[in-house]
């Protein structure tokens, strides 16, 4: 990905000034001005350990320069970040702001780790539901209370290796690539693309929850199934739609051998040109561009009843402090407001589309084929169910789903076993 110039030309300055002026005049009451004169040092914890961390560093550097508010970031891999947040916050050692995933909201909220945000504060700070896409906005609530403000929407997308696809004859006359329209078609295409150490298909990345659990979630949701029943009281993985989705998951490797083996990293395999079709997270886009991989992005194919796309939005949260510090809180709000206002830069450089609609019509974003694809998936976004048991269930799901993938366990038996374990999770 070419580096963007950070210098400001006279033309850009005048254009920006005019745009900001116009925005201020046309919508004077929608957004309060940034808090002026707030001088504070705030702590901001996040798990942006990839290329997106560097982007956040740059944005925060710019924020500090503009506002005088210093931000001390702690960047820790997500699982460790959550354990640390769980321990530090009750001890009064939590950060002023913490970036978390949507699925973490229910258990942190129910454990009293996060502070609720009331409607008046939300309104005063200029955050309104209609400015956001519904899925990530609604993900910031738990039992009717809001706890977080969404930043962006990491999501699944469909990566394709054009060279392998064309070599197998999966190209349309106009040069575009042929995409699978159903699970059977995907299996057929995958079989044709698989040869030697080249695999037709892969889903997810790594050997962790991101590969196994989230991949299953996407398949379940496409088939109208879910981990829990709608009332969230018991596990729904033994329902026929869930079994059908899991059977497909087992079919791609254990039965049809069209996907990468267990403990292979599909991301590395895709970069090495050994995977033709890959459903994986949008967070891979910038890394693939940096690695100068030849790839195309398409919408996640509809394999079952509906073209649902797995998402796991990032949310800004306020861990509950032992004593309130109004200055620091104000500074924290200023940071969230500032990043929300500059979210187009975040999207362009980190490769994640924003939850806020503000940047969705930005020509720089709509002009990028990958970002345009991610935005087009918006109507089909779905995230985890709003229960504190979601994350523990994710952890229980990974090994069971992996055993289905490698054919170690019959699907029905595995799903029944998993449902038993999930139902046994304590409240």
């Amino acid at each position: 990905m070419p580096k963007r110039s950070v210098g400001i030309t006279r033309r850009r300055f005048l254009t920006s000034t005019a745009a900001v002026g116009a925005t201020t005049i046309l919508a004077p009451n929608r957004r309060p001005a940034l808090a002026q004169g707030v001088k504070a040092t705030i702590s901001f914890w996040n798990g942006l350990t990839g290329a997106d961390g560097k982007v956040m560093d740059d944005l925060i550097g710019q924020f500090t320069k503009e506002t005088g508010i210093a931000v001390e970031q702690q960047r820790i891999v997500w699982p460790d970040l959550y354990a640390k947040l769980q321990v530090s916050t009750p001890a009064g050692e939590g950060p002023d702001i913490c970036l978390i995933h949507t699925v973490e909201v229910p258990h942190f909220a129910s454990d009293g780790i996060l502070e609720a945000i009331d409607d008046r504060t939300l309104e005063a700070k200029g955050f309104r539901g209609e400015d956001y896409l519904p899925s990530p906005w609604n993900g910031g609530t738990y039992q009717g209370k809001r706890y977080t403000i969404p930043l962006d929407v990491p999501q699944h997308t469909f990566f394709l290796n054009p060279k392998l696809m064309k070599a197998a004859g999966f190209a349309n006359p106009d040069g575009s690539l042929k995409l699978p329209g159903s699970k059977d078609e995907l299996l057929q295409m995958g079989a044709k693309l698989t040869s030697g150490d080249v695999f037709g298909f892969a889903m997810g990345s790594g050997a962790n929850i991101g590969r196994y659990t989230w991949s299953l979630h996407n398949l379940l949701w496409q088939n109208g199934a879910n981990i829990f029943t709608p009332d969230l009281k018991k596990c729904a993985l033994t329902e026929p739609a869930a079994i059908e989705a899991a059977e497909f998951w087992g079919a791609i490797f254990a039965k049809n051998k069209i996907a990468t083996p267990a403990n292979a990293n599909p991301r590395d395999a895709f970069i090495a040109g050994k995977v033709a079709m890959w459903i994986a997270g949008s967070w891979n886009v910038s890394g693939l561009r940096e690695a100068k991989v030849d790839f195309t992005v398409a919408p996640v194919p509809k394999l079952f009843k509906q073209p649902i796309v797995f998402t796991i939005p990032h949310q800004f949260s306020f861990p509950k402090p032992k004593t309130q510090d109004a200055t620091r809180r104000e500074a924290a709000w200023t940071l969230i407001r500032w990043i929300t206002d500059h979210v187009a830069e975040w999207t362009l450089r980190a490769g994640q589309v924003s939850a806020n609609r503000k940047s969705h019509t930005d020509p720089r974003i709509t002009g990028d084929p990958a970002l345009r694809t991610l935005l087009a998936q918006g109507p089909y976004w779905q995230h985890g169910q709003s229960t504190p048991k979601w994350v523990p269930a994710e952890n229980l799901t990974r090994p069971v789903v992996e055993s289905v993938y490698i054919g170690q366990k019959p699907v029905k038996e595995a799903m029944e076993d998993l449902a038993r374990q999930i139902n046994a999770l304590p409240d």
Partner: protein
Amino acid sequence: MFAGRRRALRRRVSPTPYLFLLPACLLFLLFRVYPLVNGLWLSFTNARLGRAEYAFVGLSNYEKLLDDPRFLLSLVNTAYYTVASTLPILALPLLLAVLLNRGVACKALLRGAFFFPFTLSVVTVGLAWLWLLDPVVGPFNYYMRRIGLPMPSLLAEPQTAMWGIVLTSVWWVTGYYLVIYLAGLQDIPRHLYEAAAIDGASAWRSFWSITVPLLRPVFLFVFVIHIIGSFQIFGQVFVMTQGGPGDATRTVVQHLYETAFQSLFHFGSASAMAWVLFAVILVFSLLQFRILRGHAEY
């Protein structure tokens, strides 16, 4: 006479040595004994990380462990790893130490080369071997294919994944045990070998009749340390397989970690697992001492 006894008594109760010992004792109490005792207490509670309130639940956490098939499987896997890794970890460093002790060329260089992996962190070692053994892009499988021996990756199959972990561990710790064996070998008096040679003993006979018996204390040390370390294996599993494929490499500490830090932060259950593991290690360590201690003298 009485004055002399009083002086001797004063010398005996002098506080100076205790003052020197005090900092270490305090640190030991604070960072070893207190967590241990607190962990034992937590194992009888429903404590959760980050929650101030918790209740005493008696033996409930221990009873649940008996009904937890994944915990029982993790115990079996840990025992499997311990047994599978013991022979290579005892034998390979010994073989290398005996060779190095015989005055091979570049001895210092070889000793450094063998010890080098042990200077690396477990994460570095795990990531390196994860890549080496990657079924698709790893060099191991690539070269096997090139020489006409295509084979599935060790890590990809549930039947072989634990051997991938064993291989990594052996590569990592061989240098450490090699140094210990070398020190033991160099403590064996040379004249014993010379006397054996005069009596016409072969090298093999000298090894079995002199080296092995006189290395028994070293064997005991290596064996006990290795068994304790094996039951606590975590780093390699966490980095390389996270317990997979399926639960094929799930070990007790991996299961404990997930229970304590990923799955609802259940410190009560995790503490119970830790104490079960402690009991298992204690029993095995005592058994080893009992079996090997009596033969250590020469």
